[in-house]
């Protein structure tokens, strides 16, 4: 199972902060396709995906227990 986190504006799009899904073995790109199918408004801005607290590449494979986070454009400082 993969734990998903949605932050800031993206959390307002999905309506939830967190969910657990069965996407073990899929790639980050497949995760993105899954998520935008479920929440079409996710596509409206530039989004990065982090896996286990590091920015991930589209081809990275998700392992059981991974934590993936949808990162909208950051605006700290």
């Amino acid at each position, binding site marked *: 199972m993969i734990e998903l986190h949605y*932050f800031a504006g993206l959390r307002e799009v999905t309506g939830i902060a967190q969910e657990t899904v069965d996407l073990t073995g899929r790639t980050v790109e497949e995760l993105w396709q899954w998520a935008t199918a479920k929440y079409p408004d996710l596509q409206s*801005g530039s989004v990065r995906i*982090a896996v286990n*607290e590091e920015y991930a590449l589209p081809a990275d494979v998700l392992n059981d227990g991974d934590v993936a986070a949808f990162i*909208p*454009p*950051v*605006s*700290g*400082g």
Partner: protein
Amino acid sequence: MKAFEIVSEPINPQRYADYVLRPEAGAVTLFTGHVREWTKGIRTLYLAYEAYIPMAEKKLAQIGQEIEEKWEGTRVAIAHRIGELAISDIAVVIAVSSPHRKSAYEANEYAIERIKEIVPIWKKEIWEDGEEWIGHQKKKPKEELL
């Protein structure tokens, strides 16, 4: 305190300056980013910051490591506050010590640029007539597209 941390209480910048000071240091630069009342003619009531805390602390530490590799002899500490912040509150503090002043200035400015690029922290501005997550295109259509 930790050298790279996300905090929810008011920031005391001096603690971070003290942390980086060493006998080899001839210069310390301390940057504090504050909540500004007016931005492009719009009055901010307050800000709300949110972070992906464990990743944000990791990325702050990564920036510190980048700096200590790029500018020899520097030492860095960074903290960012989350939650609701009032006008003039400190949102971020960056302390850099260095043997000589030039590195202390350059490295400090590098840190804030990198924070704005890679650290998962988000700012929501709250005005009298609304609010907005800054940087999130969905709620901030480009003017040329209107």
